[in-house]
């Protein structure tokens, strides 16, 4: 992916750029809000990573201006503010995701891949991975043709995994998107539900579809 990284703190910028380059992305850096606005308007990027606090033009205004000019390049905000409202204002301005500093590079990488993937077509009503099928209309799941009964939360968990098939989804992404939890629970919420989901999806079938990516998150992968 071709990524424009808009970040004025050079230590963070270099760290992020190096990490994303290692994962096969092409990262260009710019440290000033106004320069970034011109660059994002002039070039075609797959993703913008935008720090909230920038010299020249702050991140939220930058994205708002781009959206006003019809530029829909996905944007991920970075912020040191653990603020409650910052997330909302960021997303309202047209941001697509939000990550609070400090963050693990793996978390950022996972979110970057998730944003780089074009969203599934709206018309798509059945998601498929191997012999696993999830019907969004009938709210039903089958594997190898056998129906599998899932709890509401398990269904959403599986749906999210399948929409990001092949990518790593982190615990944070699952909490935000499946539970709408914007805090860090002190219990094994994700692990518990994930293990139940796996018991239903994978235990009596071969091969296992849901993989644990150690220290990073989970991934659902189609069998080769």
């Amino acid at each position, binding site marked *: 992916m071709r990524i424009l990284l808009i970040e004025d703190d050079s230590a963070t910028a270099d760290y992020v750029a190096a990490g994303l380059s290692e994962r096969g992305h092409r990262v260009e850096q710019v440290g000033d809000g106004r320069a970034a606005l011109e660059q994002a308007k002039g070039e075609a990027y797959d993703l913008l990573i935008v720090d909230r606090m920038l010299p020249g033009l702050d991140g939220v205004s930058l994205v708002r201006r781009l959206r006003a000019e019809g530029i829909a390049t996905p944007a991920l905000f970075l912020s040191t503010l*653990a*603020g*409650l*409202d910052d997330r*909302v204002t960021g997303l309202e301005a047209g941001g697509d995701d939000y990550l*609070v500093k*400090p963050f693990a590079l793996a978390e950022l990488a996972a979110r970057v891949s998730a944003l780089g993937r074009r969203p599934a077509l709206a018309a798509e009503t059945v998601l498929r991975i191997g012999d696993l099928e999830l019907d969004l209309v009938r709210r039903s799941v089958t594997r190898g043709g056998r129906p599998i009964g899932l*709890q*509401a*939360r398990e269904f959403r968990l599986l749906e999210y995994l399948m929409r990001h098939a092949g990518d790593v989804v982190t615990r944070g992404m699952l909490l935000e998107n499946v*539970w*709408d*939890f*914007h*805090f*860090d*629970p*002190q*219990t*094994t*919420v994700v692990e*518990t*539900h994930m293990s*139940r989901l796996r018991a239903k999806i994978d235990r009596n079938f071969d091969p296992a579809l849901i993989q644990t990516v150690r220290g990073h998150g989970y991934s659902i992968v189609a069998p080769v």
Partner: protein
Amino acid sequence: MAIPSWLPSRSWRTYSFRITLLYFALLGASVLILFGVIYWVTADFMRNQLRAAIKADEFYLTDAFAVGGVDGLAAEIARRGGTPGRTPNYYLLEDPTGKRIAGNLEPRAAVTGWQEVPIPPHLDSDEVAAPGEVDVLLARGRMLSNGWFLLVGQNEDRFADFQDQIVRIAGWSLAGVFVLAVLGGRAISASMLRRVAAITDASSEIMRGNLGRRIALRGTGDEFDHLSANLNEMLDRIQMLMDGLKQVSNDIAHDLRTPLSHLRQRLEDARDKATSAAEYRGAVETAIGATDEILATFGALLRIAQIESGTRRAAFAPVDLSAVARMIAETYGPVAEDRGQHLTSRIAEGVTVNGDRQLLTQLLANLVENAVRHSPAKTTISLALDDRPDGALMSVRDDGPGIPADERRKVFRRFYRLDASRTTPGSGLGLSLVAAIADLHRIAVELANAEPGLLVTLRFPRMGPP
């Protein structure tokens, strides 16, 4: 408007004094109107009196004429004081040729009806009449049956005197009102200034650093007492917040030192003892974990501070509390089960409150997690939501170890941890966050003994216009 130099400049500038001046203007105007009306009414009354007296006079004289003829009338006129001298009564009787037969007025043309007649100078009772100025009297002329002319009049002096008197009294009253208004205004503004000065003194003393200073109350329960009491309450609250802040900084300093020094020890250990890449890797992993915990604590503190600032309230919207409670039950049911516990729920449908959905979710999640984390296996945790007419009622109950009565208030403090839970991982901020969120939503939180276990009750304010 120029300020008279005899007015104290400070009083002049006060609002109360300006109000006093306004009162004076209003009072003065009402005095003038009152005396105007009195003047007009009495003038009318006195004129009627005068006319009635003249008519009565005339009636008696006509009577005397009917009985005794011209001679009888002339005699009656003479008897009634129709002789030259000081008298308020004036008469004139003329024969048809216009010759004066009796009376004290100069002969004049016979005109009937009401008229004003100049008083002959030698008969004028008003000694101070200006030279050349002729006083008049009110008179009524009448032709008698034999063609003689009778004029009966009375002096208007008494009447004029009375009118002068009224004008004089009005003037004095106005002066009196002015003096009273000025004195009263000064007295009122001086007393108000004293009260304001007391507040000003207290606040400047507080600004100088005596933070414990409060404004003295008079105990009269008046507006100033009310204001002072409010200010005192505000000061108390600020001081409480400052004390809280001081406490928090101390707590942070203390509670973050411990994990930071542990982190340092581990890194030092790794530097001195680790020999293989795997050992280094292990040490780094542990260090990252420890750092994350410290960051989480910081994050929670920031979040509490932000919630306590109250700015979130602006974004309040109706929240389907039933849906939030259902989601929490659905989410934590399996978590509890994995720990050998049991989570039950009884949730009323369609309960809506005004608030922040994210924060209410976190509030409930924290309470349920608290019950899950601090209770042993086989504990039953029950979540209930009721719709009461006086507001939604939510409760989280467990039959675990509970919290001793004397510690129930303290658990809301930042970093406070029960001895029994020191070994459980956690920052000691969960219930502080609960308290902050509840405060923001004006939810009353109660901790009670569930015999055994803990019962947490949340009383939501009645849903109304925000």
